[in-house]
């Protein structure tokens, strides 16, 4: 069920190649992560739209395979 931090990072970077991605495994259980994602793609977008870009990058794994990902997004 659980996802590896490097897989999460790889999926985000595949969709947002310029992104800087910092992932932390919050509980050490491979199931509760936090991610700070900074990408030019977020510029001018609402937070909802920014997070939706990240969720899109994760192709439906969020809320399924990936239980919890606390997201913080911003433009550089």
């Amino acid at each position, binding site marked *: 069920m659980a996802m590896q931090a490097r897989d999460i990072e790889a999926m985000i970077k595949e969709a947002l190649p310029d992104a800087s991605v910092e992932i932390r495994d919050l509980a050490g259980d491979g199931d509760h992560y936090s991610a700070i994602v900074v990408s030019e793609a977020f510029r001018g977008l609402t*937070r*909802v739209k920014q*997070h*939706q870009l990240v*969720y899109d990058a994760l192709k*439906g794994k*969020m*809320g*399924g395979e990936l239980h*919890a990902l*606390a*997201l*913080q997004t911003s433009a550089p």
Partner: protein
Amino acid sequence: MADIKSFIDNEVKTNDIVLFMKGTPDFPQCGFSGQVVQILSYLGVPFKGINVLDNPELREGIKSYSNWPTLPQLYVKGEFVGGCDIVREMFQKQELQAHLKEVGIAVNEAAAE
């Protein structure tokens, strides 16, 4: 599914603040839902909590309605504001308080400073 969509539509358009959550405002059954309840209670704004655990169709339906994969989900005046992370960040930056005032919802002044 069409019924669920119109149910959600009706709820978010007839209530100023709606929180789709796991559990109820009195007994949240998920820490993320609980955090948003705490923020709204702190701000002293009335809101309607809808427990998605009561209805599997609603639990899935709200995700496609909002194009948002997780719960809780906060709606203000028919507009999707965000999930737990966004609501918390907006609250910390006083943006949630400003947004509520902007749409005409009174916020507990002590909390808005």
